[in-house]
């Protein structure tokens, strides 16, 4: 399944399978098949080209959140993923970076362009997560932020005079960084993913994977997968949202063999075999970030950006957002938030996050 579709308004009808956009001829060709049901060429297949043109003009939003203890290379990885300095990084050790006492949410937006397509990328950083002595409930500010974005979108949606294009600040993807201990998940990892996998797409990655040998990596991944399964944690791509058999086979392979991706990030280039590659230079060798024999960065990049970008947005909109919306409406007696029976105004968004649907 390759979804190169541009962003559309929630319509389910538009989420059909389409191949990678290929250069289209200027004049649509007549179909070759003699068994065509059409009595002539109508031209509905040009819709793809029209959509592509529209997307290039309007661009699209993508919001990615990174969560994990400090020092696991989150910012470096995001910069490597999008090949630009999109994440603020405590690059130099000398800088006085104090660990914040509570989890902070920092969203930074950038517009990046490729092949005429503009993407407004927002990277949401969560410094302070998991760094304290007592990390009880340190996921709460994160859950609150995610729900606030759903609330913002909901408010816009129920407006009488709606904006033509609702600005989408909802978190489409949450990269959760697992520390490469080699043993198993840490209790905090389990707690976070248990709470958040029902409200946002979580993609677990094994950070700084250059400390594990091939066997250690494969054993660790197996153990992590098993632990997630035993604890009922569904990471993206969730089994229940596979649309058809083709999706299921493709996603099964990713879920059961590749994930969680063991990655290495870098913003430095070195010369290897006459080429300049992104990597890390150690006295015993150079680790190449984009070399599949060294780490799975390329797999993660292809997965998040090249094949599943649109699906991430759609699952966020059609599933996570809808769940939130339904809960809010139910709590309000079937009415949109802010309105009550006979015109009374009901209380605003609860301060505590909505309990996730079980």
């Amino acid at each position: 399944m390759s979804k190169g579709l541009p962003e559309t308004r929630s319509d389910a009808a538009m989420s059909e399978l389409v191949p990678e956009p290929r250069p289209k001829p200027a004049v649509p060709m007549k179909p070759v098949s003699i068994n065509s049901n059409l009595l002539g060429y109508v031209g509905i297949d040009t819709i793809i080209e029209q959509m592509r043109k529209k997307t290039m003009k309007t661009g699209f939003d993508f919001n990615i959140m990174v969560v994990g203890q400090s020092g696991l290379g989150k910012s470096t990885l995001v910069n490597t993923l999008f090949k630009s300095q999109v994440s603020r990084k405590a690059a130099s050790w000398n800088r006085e970076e104090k660990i914040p006492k509570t989890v902070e949410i920092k969203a930074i937006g950038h517009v990046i362009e490729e092949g005429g397509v503009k993407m407004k990328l927002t990277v949401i950083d969560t410094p302070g997560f998991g760094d304290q002595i007592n990390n009880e409930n340190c996921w709460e500010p994160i859950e609150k932020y995610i729900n606030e974005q759903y609330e913002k979108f909901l408010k816009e949606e129920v407006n009488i005079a709606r904006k033509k294009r609702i600005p989408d600040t909802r978190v489409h993807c949450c990269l959760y960084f697992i520390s490469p201990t080699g043993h198993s998940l840490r209790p905090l990892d389990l707690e976070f993913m248990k709470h958040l996998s029902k409200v946002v797409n979580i993609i677990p990655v094994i950070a700084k994977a250059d400390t594990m040998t091939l066997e250690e990596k494969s054993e660790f991944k197996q153990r992590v997968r098993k632990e997630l399964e035993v604890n009922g944690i569904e990471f993206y791509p969730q089994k229940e949202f596979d649309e058809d058999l083709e999706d299921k086979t493709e996603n099964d392979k990713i879920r059961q063999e590749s994930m969680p991706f063991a990655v290495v990030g870098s913003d430095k280039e070195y010369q290897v075999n006459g080429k300049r590659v992104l990597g890390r230079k150690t006295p015993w060798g150079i680790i190449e970030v984009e070399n599949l024999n060294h780490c799975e960065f390329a797999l993660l990049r292809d997965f998040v950006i090249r094949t599943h970008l649109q699906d991430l947005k759609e699952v966020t909109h059609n599933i996570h957002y809808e769940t939130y919306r339904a809960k809010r409406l139910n709590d309000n007696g079937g009415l949109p938030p802010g309105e009550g029976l006979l015109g009374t105004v009901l209380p605003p968004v609860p301060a505590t996050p909505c309990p996730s649907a079980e």
Partner: protein
Amino acid sequence: MQDKEYVGFSALPSQLHRKSVKKGFDFTLMVAGESGLGKSTLINSLFLTNLYEDRQVPEASARLTRTLTIERRSVEIEEGGIKVKLTLVDTPGFGDAVDCSDCWLPVVRFIEEQFEQYLRDESGLNRKNIQDSRVHCCLYFISPFGRGLRPLDVAFLRAMHEKVNIIPVIGKADALMPKETQALKQKIRDQLKEEEINIYQFPECDSDEDEEFKRQDAEMKERIPFAVVGSSEVVRDGGTSRPVRGRCYSWGTVEVENPHHCDFLNLRRMLVQTHLQDLKEVTHDLLYEGYRARCLQSLARPGARDRTSRSKLSRQSATEIPLPMLPLAETEKLIREKDEELRRMQEMLEKMQAQMQQSQAPGEQSDSL
């Protein structure tokens, strides 16, 4: 030797040596730090044993409610005719939980319990076979993934640095490029200074060592905290095709004993080969004496500040051994008697002074004392 200039006590060191070889050597090493930093692998590499063979690391869900435990493992190692009884103290569960508040307290208590046991044995009647279970050294593992010491590291080190010799090491150092290692070490050194944490200071070279040795020694000390890599496997390094202890990656092989790759050799040399005895001595002369002084001081002042610790001590003692045989109570009794004597002498002095004033003999100061 029949030479009349020669007395013969220069043979003392070799006599001591022979005695200690016969007696054997005890050493207790504690290993601490969050799980997954390569502690067990490093210990196996350091002592070339497989102390952690049947180890089973519990999964995350089991660790959710697990509290910190203290585990002791002993092994007898023999090398060159010298027997060493090495006891390893492990702290599984440290730093694992979501809420790690006060998780270092059981460790601190454990160390103090060893001191207390030694104090009791030392004050007791049968002192021939005192078992020294005091912790002589604590290897504290710092994560290479963080940006220096984490809040938990600082809390642990501050609770422990006056009670045990701490040697901080950076575990899994093959995660770092050389520049990163340097920066991390510097950051840790700065933080240790800022938080006023006293780690074990390797003693100065003897002044009669040659310059080269002194230079090497200084260079080695600059590498603290040591960035180590451990391995329990011997691999065949592709380049030189000789077997080395190391880790095989697709991009190269890390050699544990290569000083350009990590500081393992330094750690082994300084910890095992040259400073085992010094660590024991510092534990006894400095850390234990500090504990002992604090303990006895609080006993000597009944009703003073440390009432709680004193009563805790006597309560504990009372439940374990019948009162008359209690060594600690004996010491307490002695101190009380001395105090009483002092008080009586003071009273006498005051009485005499009062008498002198009453006698009103001008100029006559009879010294009746």
